[in-house]
């Protein structure tokens, strides 16, 4: 890399960073949109403001976010990467026992975080990330609990978050507008969306870690 390019890159980076710093330094005191959120909390169906914004007031962002994750998964699958090669050594006893202990705990914690999201920090993504962590751990010890599941079912599960979210969003149009849940149903609808999103996010992240798409063959015999 020529020195001139490095110098120009450094100048540009410092300029951009400096502009952001200047903007941060010039910020006035402000409560932002907190008042607006607090005023509508009763109608959101949950009691944690971040969850209310994520799944109700700005549900559109979250719907698209789940769709982006699904798109990334579909795009990664369509690259047809080779399945991760098996390491020459069998996973050690410590790792295997650790995974055996951790995976059930992670699944329980995921359910806890999913439920907690309604009134405290937590929710679908955090729960999904824990599920994905369990999936990655299982992949490290070369156990594939979903290996026997038909690929179509796995694809459907990966899309479930978007599908349930879209269904709820469209159902809300019956007597309202897109994504405007009736306040008395909002809590239940949000829980349904988050439950489906948790499974999809966990599955998508775990499969993005592996890289290859689910197939029926190549199972059997591979595992010892």
């Amino acid at each position, binding site marked *: 890399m020529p020195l001139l390019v490095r110098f120009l890159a450094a100048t540009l980076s410092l300029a951009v960073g400096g502009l952001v710093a200047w903007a941060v330094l010039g910020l006035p005191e402000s*409560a932002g949109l907190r008042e607006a959120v607090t005023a509508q909390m009763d109608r959101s169906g949950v009691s944690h403001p971040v969850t209310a914004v*994520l799944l109700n007031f700005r549900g559109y962002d979250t719907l698209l976010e789940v769709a982006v994750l699904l798109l990334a998964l579909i795009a990664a699958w369509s690259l047809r*990467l080779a399945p991760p090669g098996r390491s020459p050594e069998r996973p050690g006893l410590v790792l295997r026992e650790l995974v055996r202990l951790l995976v059930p705990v992670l699944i329980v914690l995921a359910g806890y975080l999913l439920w907690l999201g309604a009134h405290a920090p937590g929710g679908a993504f955090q729960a999904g990330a824990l599920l994905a962590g369990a999936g990655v751990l299982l992949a490290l010890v070369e156990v594939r609990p979903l290996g026997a599941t038909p690929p179509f079912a796995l694809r459907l599960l990966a899309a479930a978050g978007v599908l349930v979210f879209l269904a709820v969003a469209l159902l809300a149009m019956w007597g309202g507008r897109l994504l405007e849940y009736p306040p008395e149903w909002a809590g239940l609808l949000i829980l349904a969306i988050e439950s489906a999103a948790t499974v999809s996010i966990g599955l998508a992240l775990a499969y993005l870690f592996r890289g290859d798409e689910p197939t029926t063959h190549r199972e059997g015999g591979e595992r010892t």
Partner: protein
Amino acid sequence: MSAVLAYGLAGAALIAIGLYALIVRRHLLRKILAMNVVGNGVFLVLVALAKRSAVPDPVPHAMVLTGIVVAVSATALALALAVRVRDATGQATLDERRGTAAEAGRGRDAPG
């Protein structure tokens, strides 16, 4: 120094560091890491924006949560593409002098 300034300025510094590495580094893995450093800088600035009053503003927090998922998705796809580029050309950079179409074809046929 207030929390807003500490987090905001740290975010600005991360954006600058990440942007520099994104331009200067050739290896795709480093570029992907640099992109994530920039993204985390943006998240830090957003979290700082939320803390300008005693009780934080939930909207930037929700934006950061959404942003993290999008960043994870983009990173995963970028990594998959980088693996594909390495498989096809035998190198993990986008160097146009070497990574020609002819070489890409040869790289794919090569064993391993």
